């Protein structure tokens, strides 16, 4: 049994190559079917996200020939020349493949260190492959362990707790003031990419009410339709600004759009309830002196970038802790794998000994005609019993072996001593 992994990610391949080798859900399913149909792999799972495309599989024999076959398969499947593809690919086998998957699941191999999305993507890929019967006992166990380590790393380390994007950092800060945002109101000014990121974050947090405003009302309405928001007139600030608890501004202006007197009036109108402002525009959209107002919390792009930077350093400090957990789970998986292999080796050994016993008896008893068929069967049964007795003690000792390295060595020793190449599982 050999676990094989062939793939590429943002570290090994430029975006142009990653785009060509990415798999849609249907493509991933088709690829898994074809790989098994062509006999390249016995069990298969395709993991494809915007930053990586990886094929995990179990090869029917213990040879590493499958990697070359997988490169050819990828090249044919995506119609990309092998020489263009090969330099971007990495190949991992067995323990290294297990370790790689566990690191991916833990977020250690992500572009945004510790991001949570990858765990969901691994889960989805596994559930789809499982439903399509593309996985078997090995990949099932492997991916269940990967999901477990992903959860454990997030629960036991700080790797995933702090926000890493400007928009999510802003939302986390708003939660420091208001708690959950599901009964709050937000106003987003602008309809560009940054505004979209913020709106998406607000929707993820089930914001109670979402208002959108933009110079181009048409664009704001499109935006509102997409994110189920309400459009407010641009420029009607006195009536607009008294509504929200969170204001995010990301528009291109030359002078501050929201001035101190304007916010002062809105604060008076809203009974001085806390107001959280995020200025994501460049040049700044909100007068910086607004932060002097009572119960106003203003964060600019610079402030949020600094927080993200602090968080990045904090997450990096958590990497060693996460790596310890990953190694613990890798050892657990290898131990399981070794036990499974032990059972396989013992079964093969038993089968082999029985075959030899049958051949031996057949040869030796050929000239002994005074034995009846009943006697012959009896002799066969006695020899089977002897073989079982001879096998039980070493099998028990092997099973009871606690030290993983020794267990693996013992399995290897049995293979080498008693089994021919043909018989090795």
């Amino acid at each position, binding site marked *: 049994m050999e676990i094989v992994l062939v793939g590429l990610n943002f570290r090994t391949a430029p975006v142009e190559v990653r785009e060509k080798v990415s798999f849609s859900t249907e493509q991933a399913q088709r690829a898994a079917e074809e790989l098994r149909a062509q006999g390249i792999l016995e069990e298969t799972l395709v993991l494809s996200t915007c930053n990586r495309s990886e094929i995990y599989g179990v090869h029917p024999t213990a040879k590493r020939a499958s990697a070359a076959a997988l490169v050819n398969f990828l090249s044919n499947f995506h119609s990309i020349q092998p020489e263009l593809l090969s330099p971007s690919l990495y190949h991992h086998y067995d323990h290294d493949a297990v370790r790689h998957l566990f690191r991916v699941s833990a977020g250690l191999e992500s572009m945004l260190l510790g991001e949570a999305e990858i765990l969901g993507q691994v889960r989805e890929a596994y559930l789809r492959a499982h439903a399509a019967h593309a996985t078997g006992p090995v990949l099932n166990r492997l991916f269940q362990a990967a999901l477990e380590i992903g959860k454990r790393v997030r*629960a*036991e380390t*700080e790797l995933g*707790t*702090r926000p890493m994007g400007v928009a999510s950092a802003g939302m*986390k*800060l708003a*939660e*420091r*003031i*208001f*708690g959950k945002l599901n009964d709050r109101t937000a106003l987003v000014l602008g309809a560009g990419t940054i505004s979209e990121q913020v709106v998406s974050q607000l929707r993820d947090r089930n914001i109670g009410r979402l208002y959108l405003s933009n110079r181009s009302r048409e664009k704001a309405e499109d935006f509102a339709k997409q994110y189920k928001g309400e459009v407010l007139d641009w420029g009607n600030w006195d009536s607009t600004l008294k509504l929200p608890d969170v204001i995010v501004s990301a528009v291109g202006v030359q002078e501050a759009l929201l001035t101190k007197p304007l916010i002062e009036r809105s604060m*008076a109108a809203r*009974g*001085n*309830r*806390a107001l959280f402002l995020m200025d994501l525009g460049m040049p700044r959209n909100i007068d910086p002196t607004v*932060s002097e107002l*009572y*119960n106003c*919390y203003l*964060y600019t792009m610079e*402030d949020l970038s*600094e*927080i993200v930077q*602090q968080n990045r350093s*904090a997450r990096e400090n958590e990497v060693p802790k996460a790596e310890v957990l990953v190694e613990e789970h890798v050892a657990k998986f290898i131990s399981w794998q070794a036990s499974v292999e032990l059972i396989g080796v013992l079964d093969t050994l038993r089968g082999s000994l029985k075959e030899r016993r049958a051949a031996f008896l057949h040869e030796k008893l050929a000239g002994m005609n005074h034995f009846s068929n009943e006697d012959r069967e009896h002799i066969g049964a006695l020899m089977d019993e002897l073989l079982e007795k001879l096998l039980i003690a070493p099998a028990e000792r092997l099973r009871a072996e606690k030290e993983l390295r020794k267990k693996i060595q013992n399995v290897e020793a049995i293979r080498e001593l008693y089994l021919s190449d043909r018989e090795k599982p």
Partner: protein
Amino acid sequence: MNHTFVILTVLAYLLSMGLYVQFLYTGKELTGRLATLLMFLGLGTHYLALLMSARASHTVPYHDLQGAMSLFGWLLAVTYLCVEIYHRQRTVGAFVMPVILIFFFIANLMPTRPHATAPVHGVVFALHVTLSILAYAAFALSCVLSLIYLGEERLLRIRRLGDVVWRLPPLELLERMSHTSVMVGLVTILVGTSLGFIAVDRNIAEHYSYFDPKYIFTLFVLLLYIVYFRLARTAAWRGARASKLCVFNFVLVVVNFWVVNLFFSQHHRYF
């Protein structure tokens, strides 16, 4: 026997405090639950220590300063646990536990004085004292919560967000927790004072005169917190100003408590 419970209480509270601090830094749910569990255990042994002390002196445990401080610590722990369970927020435990421990330590490290017999007995009197001390414990908790609010608000304003700030309760939740605590204090001080008058009325002939400067002080405390409660909901005061007022109120309570009890009151020496 009493010493055993004191030692067990100190151990439980110390461990609980350590776990609350660890929870504040790591956010591990299991650590937080263990901290709460140990606090419950500490409350149990603390209660038994108070009970033993009361039995030994044949009087209520709060008749002397030692007992009153120990009971204050116990009631502060009870109030905190109620607030923790009601608001489902444990990070505050790391800040409240040291206060509880300080009171418990001082109460138990003070030299033991021979117990004087309590001039007044009975359920009404016991409830009066217990509820009054509970009120002060609730006000102390609101003060701690307000201090956390002010600290967190300051850190958010100067954008110094270390490990702890991300785990502290949101500002508005801290405000609500503080209001809950003040509300508990107001209700208990009202009921406790009313029961005090009933107790005085029953014992008037034997020990008490109707007037005690403590009454004016209690009225003053009531007014302070009613004003806080009212102002904390107004546009001009909600937020940091209300929290500052809450801290200021508690400082006044402590100072007046000290001055009034030690120098003016005849019947309220320790509560």
